[in-house]
């Protein structure tokens, strides 16, 4: 099957590029939004599926990246690469500062902490009027010049191509990184952090690195959002968006970056194209239930996990008595 992967990817990419000329402005803008949601979903999949940190808080670096870009636009910085680097740095810095709250927790606790971080960021964006213009939002009108010497993006087709190029480069870089030892270290941390510590690995350091990279990716997604819609408000990173992204990741398969992109496409298309007025939540709910029942690992999820499910081999050790469980809890506390 692998021999068909590269030509198929090239053909898909050529098709996506051709849309800049073959589709109308509305469709181009919608595709660009799907790519942005897809990049945000990739950052969530990196944390949830690869590093084992389920998150509802990636909207925080997303918003911070978007506001950073809007502020740069206000200061007449129209160079795309500067906007992207600024947004990535802001998202990464936010992640670095909040990492101690996130990387030492596990499971539902991470979900709650990241949800709180996302909601706090939305609240700050709504109230810090001198910087963010509050709930009115910020206009960021200006034509982006992707790189010095290139033409400004003056059509929706050009903005779509710019978004496609940025998302393609970043997702490819991430896929390559995940195929390297760094990816194996993260997956091993997700599988069994205790075993990682027993092998001498700095687990918190690895998780912090993943969290910072995911923050930078979300920040870039925020910058692209500002480029596409020339506007940002707290609602662009509210709980609805966070839940939608997690839904996209679950549907696509949390362990697959491509799955996250596909999931984002499905979710946004269902919400904005397929659903009639007011029926989007119902359709999304049905899609979610169908996926959870029929594809517990998502469309493109971990095949090893699927194999475990099929063979009914227990992933966890056999049940133990209360004393051993109490000892395990003490071990975990000591290890932190």
């Amino acid at each position, binding site marked *: 099957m692998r021999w068909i992967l590269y030509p198929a990817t090239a053909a898909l990419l050529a098709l996506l590029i051709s849309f800049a000329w073959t589709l109308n402005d509305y469709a181009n803008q919608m595709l660009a939004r799907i790519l942005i949601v897809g990049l945000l979903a990739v950052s969530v999949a990196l944390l949830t599926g690869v590093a084992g940190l389920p998150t509802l808080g990636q909207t925080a670096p997303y918003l911070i990246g978007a506001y950073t870009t809007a502020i740069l636009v206000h200061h007449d910085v129209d160079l795309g690469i500067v906007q992207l680097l600024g947004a990535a740095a802001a998202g990464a810095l936010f992640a670095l500062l909040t990492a101690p709250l996130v990387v030492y927790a596990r499971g539902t606790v991470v979900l709650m902490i990241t949800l709180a971080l996302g909601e706090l960021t939305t609240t700050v964006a709504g109230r810090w009027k001198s910087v963010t213009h509050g709930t009115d939002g910020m206009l960021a009108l200006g034509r982006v010049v992707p790189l010095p010497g290139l033409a400004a993006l003056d059509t929706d087709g050009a903005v779509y191509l710019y978004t496609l190029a940025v998302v393609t480069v970043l997702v490819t870089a991430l896929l390559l990184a995940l195929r390297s*030892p760094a990816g*194996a*270290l993260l*997956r*091993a941390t*997700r*599988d*069994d952090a*205790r*075993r*990682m*510590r*027993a*092998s*001498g*690995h*700095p*687990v918190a350091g690895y998780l912090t690195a993943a969290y910072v990279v995911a923050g930078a990716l979300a920040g870039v997604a925020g910058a692209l959002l500002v480029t596409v819609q020339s506007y940002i408000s707290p609602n662009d990173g509210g709980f609805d968006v966070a839940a939608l992204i997690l839904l996209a990741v679950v549907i696509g398969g949390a362990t697959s970056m491509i799955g996250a992109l596909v999931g984002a496409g499905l979710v946004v298309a269902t919400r904005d194209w397929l659903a009639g007025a007011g029926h989007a939540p119902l359709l999304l709910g049905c899609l979610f239930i169908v996926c959870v029942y029929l594809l517990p690992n998502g469309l493109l999820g*971990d095949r*090893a*996990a699927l*194999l*475990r499910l099929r*063979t009914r*081999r227990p*992933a966890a*050790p*056999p049940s133990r008595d209360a*004393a051993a469980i*109490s*000892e395990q809890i*003490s*071990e975990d506390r*000591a*290890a932190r």
Partner: protein
Amino acid sequence: MILRVEGLGRSYGDLAALDGVGLELAPGERRALIGPNGAGKTTLLNLVAGALRPTAGRIHFAGRDVTRMSPARRARLGIGRTHQHPAVWPTLSALDNVLVAARRPWGRLRAGARDRLAAAGLADLAGVPAGALSHGRRRQLELAMALAGEPSLLLLDEPAAGLAPPEVELLAGLLAELPDGVAVLLVEHHLDLVYGFADHVTVLHSGRHVHTGTVAETRRSPEVAAAYAGVRP
């Protein structure tokens, strides 16, 4: 001494899982730790590995006081271990499990990791996800992983638990081929395996040290017989 444990204790409320145990291990020594269920053997292993914090006593490894060190730092200093329930990374291949456990750049390690897998009897299973391996194969893999970190002290927690007799024989062969310079502390209920492997045997009962001696001395010890017969000496 590579390991010196002094007055080590671990209590859970009023229950003392380990009570003032002392232990010394020379470099390259093979020491078995035996005793009935609840004797505190695994607790002692977890305390030495850093997975548990002691409520009393000190642990010195290679001349350093490691009592308050994290498990990861102890592992980097040279304490390797296996677990009662074999702990492998199920979604990684067997080869990647060994590579990750080795903690060094992979380019130069790949051949060495394959050798380690071959030595553990897993040469044909290098590309198989560890989660798809049988219990016995996981035990072999975890031993290869522990050795990949090139420890100077290896803690083995009931490596024969759940193995069929032919697998125990295979395990005995693997233990016999452990590098000479590695000190081993083996917790095990399988006494034939213990007596065939160990230079010295330490016996715990109800969290207390009962006896340390050679295999021959341990076989003759009335305290050991009493401990296994359920009578506190």
